[in-house]
């Protein structure tokens, strides 16, 4: 339970797709740096990262639209990266949907079956099923230009799923939708994935979306994987300072570790010996909600400190406080409280539990 590198359960035999030491250069820019990743059958894996992190490039390499500079991609024991895109059992939902403008919804959806020469009876029954699955039966004869963004999104999904791919790639498919529709499509996407049982590789830059949808998140940064873990694990046990900051908010406490005691300004606590951390400079991540107001007797072993309130930001169900404990600035998430009690410039007692402070690698 200590680190969050890909867990040893994921052996090669069990994985659907293996990305082996893939590098990709565009001229002088190295977009992917010897990246390796295993995708398990049936999982919803999200590639999460800022723009320029290489997530879309990785997706395009798997789809076959780009060739890797070095490295290999294998799918179920077969080399994938040497095949052209039209010979891969991988389908893609494009960012702007890329629906064929000259074909109606039915012909867009049936495209994948028609090009492979499936019998027409099978085509029509499978198209009907697909359209029903994405609730677009009534629009079968409409052209893409006559559909809303959300409807185009559904058609793109049905079109990509009609060939029953082993792996579905989704390139920021929800980024073009407005916020409400986006939330709705997220839950539909999730239930659709359970229904069809196809492995989804989903690309997004939105950490909330990644948290809401994924079985696992692969966090990319500058062409390398920062951490691959389940959403809960990546949030509660971030491996690096970057992961801790990118997924949710956090306080990074930089200090000195001496024989299992951590010193950070006026704060100090005893670190679990089982972590076996070496002495020297260390970095801990402490989530804002782990710090609480000490209004009643605090639990045993809690780190108690006095801090003054600099600012408070009201956010509906919760409230974010910016406090300063000596020289250390901290952010605290609390339940909203009476404006008078936590007025700016007043001093209060706060506490957190040492086990909530997670050691993270510098990054």
């Amino acid at each position, binding site marked *: 339970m200590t680190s969050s590198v890909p867990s040893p359960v994921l052996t090669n035999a069990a994985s659907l797709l293996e990305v082996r030491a893939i590098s990709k250069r565009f001229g002088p820019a190295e977009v992917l740096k010897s990246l390796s990743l295993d995708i398990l059958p049936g999982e919803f894996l999200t590639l999460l990262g800022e723009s320029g992190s290489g997530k879309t490039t990785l997706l395009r390499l798997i*789809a076959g639209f780009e060739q890797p500079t070095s490295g290999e991609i294998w799918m179920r024991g077969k080399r994938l990266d040497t095949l*052209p895109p039209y010979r891969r059992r991988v389908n893609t939902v494009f960012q702007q949907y890329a629906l064929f403008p*000259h074909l109606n919804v039915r012909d867009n959806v049936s495209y994948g079956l028609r*090009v492979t020469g499936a019998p027409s009876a099978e085509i029509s029954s499978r198209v009907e099923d697909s359209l029903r699955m994405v609730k677009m039966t009534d629009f079968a004869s409409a*052209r893409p*230009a006559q559909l809303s963004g959300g409807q185009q999104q559904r058609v793109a999904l049905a079109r990509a799923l009609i060939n029953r791919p082993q792996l579905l790639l989704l390139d920021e498919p929800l980024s073009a939708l407005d916020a409400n529709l986006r939330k709705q499509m997220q839950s539909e996407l999730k239930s659709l994935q359970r229904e069809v049982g196809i492995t989804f590789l989903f690309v997004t830059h939105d950490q909330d979306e990644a948290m809401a949808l994924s079985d696992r998140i692969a966090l990319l940064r500058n062409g390398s994987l920062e951490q691959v873990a389940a959403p809960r694990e990546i949030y509660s046990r971030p491996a690096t300072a970057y992961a801790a900051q990118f997924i949710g908010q956090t306080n990074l406490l930089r200090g000195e570790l001496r024989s299992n005691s951590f010193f950070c300004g006026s704060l100090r606590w005893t670190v679990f010996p089982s972590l076996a951390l070496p002495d020297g400079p260390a970095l801990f991540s402490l989530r804002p909600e782990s710090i609480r107001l000490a209004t009643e007797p605090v639990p045993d072993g809690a780190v108690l400190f006095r801090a003054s309130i600099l600012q408070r930001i009201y956010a509906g169900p919760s409230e974010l406080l910016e406090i300063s404990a000596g020289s250390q600035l901290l952010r605290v998430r609390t339940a909203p409280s009476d404006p008078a009690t936590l007025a700016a410039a007043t001093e209060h007692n706060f506490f957190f539990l040492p086990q909530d402070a997670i050691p993270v690698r510098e990054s």
Partner: protein
Amino acid sequence: MYSRLYKSLVSIPPLAWVAVFLLLPYALMLAHSFWAVRQGLLVHDWNLSNYRTLLTHPVYLQVFFRTLRIAASVTLFSILLAYPLAYYLSFHAGPRKELLYQLVIVPLWVSYLVRGYAWKTILGTDGVLNGFLHYLHLTSEPAGFLLYSPFAVVLMLTHIYTPFVFLPIYAALEHIPRPLLEASHDLGAGPRSTFWRVILPLSLPGLLAGSTFAFLLTLGDFLAPLLVGGPSGLMIANIVQSLFGAAYDWPLGAAISMSILLLILAILFLTERLEKRWSHTGASR
């Protein structure tokens, strides 16, 4: 925002221009086509005999159908040259794209007449092509059929109108969103299947626009037949020219002109409808 007076004032010059320089001449032409020439004098005697002559006299029909054949050939050969070129430039030329594009466009800056005379020098009995064939010992005496034939007209006009066909096709190909091609490959279609199912249908409006250019411009051409056509390469515009000139039969010339005009308008009407049906860039249809 703008007053009605202002709006009507600014619309007067273009309307006047169209009326004086387009509608009036056409109206005069239409009127002429119903008149007649007797003893070298134009008489305002309204009748349909010009149109009757046109439809019954074998020479006019023969030249008219030859003109259609030449126009169709020029269109076909221009497409056969321009489409692959536009396809290559748009999808496979890479960094050479700009240079090649300019090379296709440059001939448009050269005068039509210069290019016509160039073909004359190339195709003539003591021309470049015959000299070359003789040098290779492929022919013992100069081939006369090269110049002064419908073949020469088709060759010259194909050369001249290929860039006109190329441009709209190239523009249509450039406007095809590249993710559509990726989507097609992604769904299992190879390059050939993608061409027939995605690229060709989406380039049809450009293909149609280019074909219309070549066909209609050839239909009204009279210089190419004069330069390289000879008697067997005469086209309908040459007949019109001679009727208005040496033959001094303006009414018959006007009747032929009006017929061609009608044909051209019909073609434009049809192609516009087809283009609307085939274009999918608009928000809705």
